């Protein structure tokens, strides 16, 4: 009976690989379909082809899902090659990728494959763990089809671990899920497994009721021949165990036929062994030997180690002498190697699993570490940025304060100069006043005396002198300066000199806001114009003067040009009037430039900063 569930196992395994409607693109779908077809047909080359195609596709679109499939197919390839450790490794990889992209269905399915693989390799505990892990992924998304398979697997594993009660619970659950998905094969399979469970406990009658239930399934012989063969074999075995010898052989033969027909080569050794055992019981040793040798052949072919051992054991019983010894020897060697292999596989599975977990832990650790480092780098960057900003700000502050102080100093200096100019103005006023009051007063007295002494001519001359002094005093002081606005003042000044033969034109005078301009500047401009006009009248023989005002970049520009005879700026001496102007310009941080050439007129240019 133990022989049977190896048989079962494979069907189970196929179910695990079945495709499902996942949304993949056309190519992917095609490759996956082809790969699965090849896998079920045990066409290794087909699987390899699909695997390669998937890899190429992955390189093109970098789709993690495709990459997971690629690993799955690689695993399937190794499974076909009976290299369970490699298969396990790739299933595990595939599962991990699906885990990363959060595809619960794929994770569950890979875990299921792993569970089957482990059970196949007799790592029952591992299989149980994998199955339960698969449940964690599949239960929330209620994938009844796969949940049924998991419970079947768990039932088989529990059975193997001699936990019959639990096995039954799992089979019940499998049947429960089966109701939801109308999976007849699954139903037959579970029924068979329950039957097997009772068969193992030697409750053959109960087992037979289950097998009969399966065989009573509508049209089972045509629809599900593989399941039919399985059930038929098992009912035959149980019947035989109950000493109901009739038709046992016929049943076995029917099973053999069906299996050969459907190329279920790996199940053939089971049937052959059953038949061999039957003949052995009947003491028909030749026939028994024949079937045992057949069983051995197929077991070797399909790597069905269990049956291989059983076949060897049976053959050593059936044969005698050296031949029996050889079979026994072979049995012992194989058994040892198999035990070792199983142990190794278990270890390897555990190792792969452990390493994956470790890697995961390491990854999370590295991730954390990375994040920490990243944070540190960002922190440092921020620090540097802050540092730069701070230094920039401090430099800016420094520059600003320096410029502020320079500016302030300049302003203070300018104001001091202005004050100086104002003091000078006051001084001038005082001189003017004393000229007016004292000198003119004295002159007046003298004038009266002269008049009294009838010296009218002298009195007249003295009157002229007095008038001159008065004029001088008026020029020195700017008595009416504040009473009349600057524009009118300039016009008045120009009017005093204007004549049809001496045309003075003033440009842009009214375009400047003189209200805001410091009176010292205005006084300077006034005096400069007067001085220039007087010089022009005295020396230049000009008939035209142009006076131009402008404000540009916080500077007042005054430009006076005439069409006179000009002079050589290098040889000519500056008059007192011009020297006075120059002094005033310097006081106000201005610039005075006089350009002239013989025959080309004179140009006087003054620039004074506006209220610094």
């Amino acid at each position, binding site marked *: 009976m133990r022989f049977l569930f190896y048989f079962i196992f494979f069907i189970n395994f196929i179910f695990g690989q079945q495709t499902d409607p996942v949304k993949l693109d056309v190519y992917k779908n095609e490759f996956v379909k082809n790969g699965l077809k090849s896998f079920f047909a045990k066409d290794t080359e087909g699987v390899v082809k699909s695997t390669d195609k998937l890899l190429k596709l992955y390189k093109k679109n970098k789709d993690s899902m495709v990459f997971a499939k690629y690993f799955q197919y690689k695993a399937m390839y190794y499974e076909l090659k009976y290299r369970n450790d490699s298969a396990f490794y790739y299933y595990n990889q595939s599962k991990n990728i699906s885990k990363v992209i959060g595809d619960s269905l794929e994770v569950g399915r890979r875990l299921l494959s792993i569970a089957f693989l482990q059970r196949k390799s007799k790592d029952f505990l591992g299989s149980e763990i994998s199955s339960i892990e698969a449940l964690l992924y599949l239960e929330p998304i209620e994938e009844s089809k796969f949940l049924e398979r998991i419970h079947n697997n768990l039932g088989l594993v529990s059975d193997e671990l001699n936990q019959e009660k639990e096995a039954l619970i799992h089979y019940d659950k499998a049947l429960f899920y089966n109701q939801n998905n109308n999976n007849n094969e699954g139903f037959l399979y579970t029924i068979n497994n329950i039957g097997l469970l009772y068969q193992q406990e030697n409750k053959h009658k109960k087992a037979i009721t289950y097998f009969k239930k399966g065989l009573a399934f509508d049209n089972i012989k045509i629809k599900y021949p593989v399941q039919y063969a399985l059930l038929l074999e098992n009912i035959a075995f149980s019947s035989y165990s109950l000493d109901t010898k009739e038709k046992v052989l016929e049943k076995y033969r029917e099973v053999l036929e069906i299996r050969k027909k459907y190329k279920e080569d790996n199940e053939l050794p089971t049937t052959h062994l059953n038949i061999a055992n039957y003949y052995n019981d009947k003491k028909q040793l030749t026939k028994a030997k024949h079937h045992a040798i057949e069983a051995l052949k197929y077991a070797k072919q399909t790597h069905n180690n269990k049956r291989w051992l059983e076949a060897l054991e049976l053959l050593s019983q059936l044969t005698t002498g050296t031949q029996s010894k050889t079979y026994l020897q072979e049995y012992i060697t194989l058994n040892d190697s198999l035990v070792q292999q199983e142990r190794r596989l278990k270890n390897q599975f555990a190792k792969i699993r452990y390493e994956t977990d470790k890697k995961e832990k390491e990854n999370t650790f590295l991730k954390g570490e990375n994040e920490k480092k990243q944070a540190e780098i960002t922190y440092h960057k921020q620090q540097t940025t802050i540092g730069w900003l701070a230094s920039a700000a401090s430099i800016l502050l420094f520059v600003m304060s320096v410029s502020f102080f320079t500016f302030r100093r300049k302003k203070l200096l300018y104001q001091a100069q202005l004050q100086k100019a104002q003091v000078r103005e006051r001084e001038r006023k005082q001189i003017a006043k004393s000229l007016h*009051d004292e000198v003119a007063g004295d002159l007046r007295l003298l004038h009266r005396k002269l*008049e009294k002494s009838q010296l009218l001519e002298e009195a007249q001359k003295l009157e002229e002198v007095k008038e001159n002094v008065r004029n001088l005093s*008026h020029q020195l002081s700017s008595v009416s300066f504040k009473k009349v606005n600057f524009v009118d003042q300039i016009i008045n*000044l120009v009017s005093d000199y204007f004549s*049809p033969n001496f045309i003075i034109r003033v440009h842009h005078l009214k375009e400047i806001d003189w209200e805001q301009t410091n009176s010292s500047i205005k006084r300077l401009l006034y005096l400069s114009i007067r001085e220039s006009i007087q010089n022009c009248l005295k020396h230049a023989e000009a008939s035209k003067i142009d006076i131009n005002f402008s404000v540009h970049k916080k500077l007042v520009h005054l430009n006076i040009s005439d069409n006179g005879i000009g002079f050589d700026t290098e040889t000519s001496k500056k008059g007192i009037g011009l020297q006075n102007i120059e002094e005033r310009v310097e006081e106000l941080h201005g610039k005075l430039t006089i350009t002239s050439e013989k025959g080309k007129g004179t140009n006087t240019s003054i620039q004074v900063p506006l209220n610094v």
Partner: protein
Amino acid sequence: MSEKIKILIVDDHQLIIEGILSYLKDINNLEIETTNSCDEAFTKIKVALTETPFQILFTDLSFDNADGKSKLDSGESLIKAIRAENIAIKIGVITGHSETNRIFNVVQNLTPSAYLLKGKCNTNELNFAIQKMLSGEVYFTHEIHQKLLKRSLVEIQMDEVAIQILKELPNHPKISNLEGVITKGDGSFLKIRSIENKLAKLRTDLQANNNTDLVLKAKELGILD
């Protein structure tokens, strides 16, 4: 001539007052008072208001005799004080000041009814000025008038073209004849339309009624001989 014209003369120089008085003695019907200081003049005017007010005030502008104690130290402040109290009196300035700035300042801000110059006035002019003042008109002596005109010439930026036009105007009976005579700075001729525009502007600026008047003003300014 039943009522006498009441006049107050203020000047710091007694000599000047005597001179003016000597000119005015030939004019009948005048009742003249004199004083040497602005403060006294202001008091006199205010006191006279209660009985017979002064009709005319002649004042100088600068007062050399003014000292720290004087409240009104110049003709200007006296005029301002009178204006401030809204006293009905015609004010004439008789002074030696002929700087445009002073003239302009006084005329513009104090609007006197007359502006005469000491050195140049005589009985006739004084009489003429008094008559004008009493009839509510304004009289500025020729020199002052000339200066104010010149000032407006400067203010409107009298250029060579304007002077050319003013000079040529008396020589041509028709304005259209001026075309081809007046040249621009670059030597090209000015169009009739531009000449007419310029003339119109000159008339406004020099307050001339017509072109003949304009010629007269130009003569006054000395632009024309």
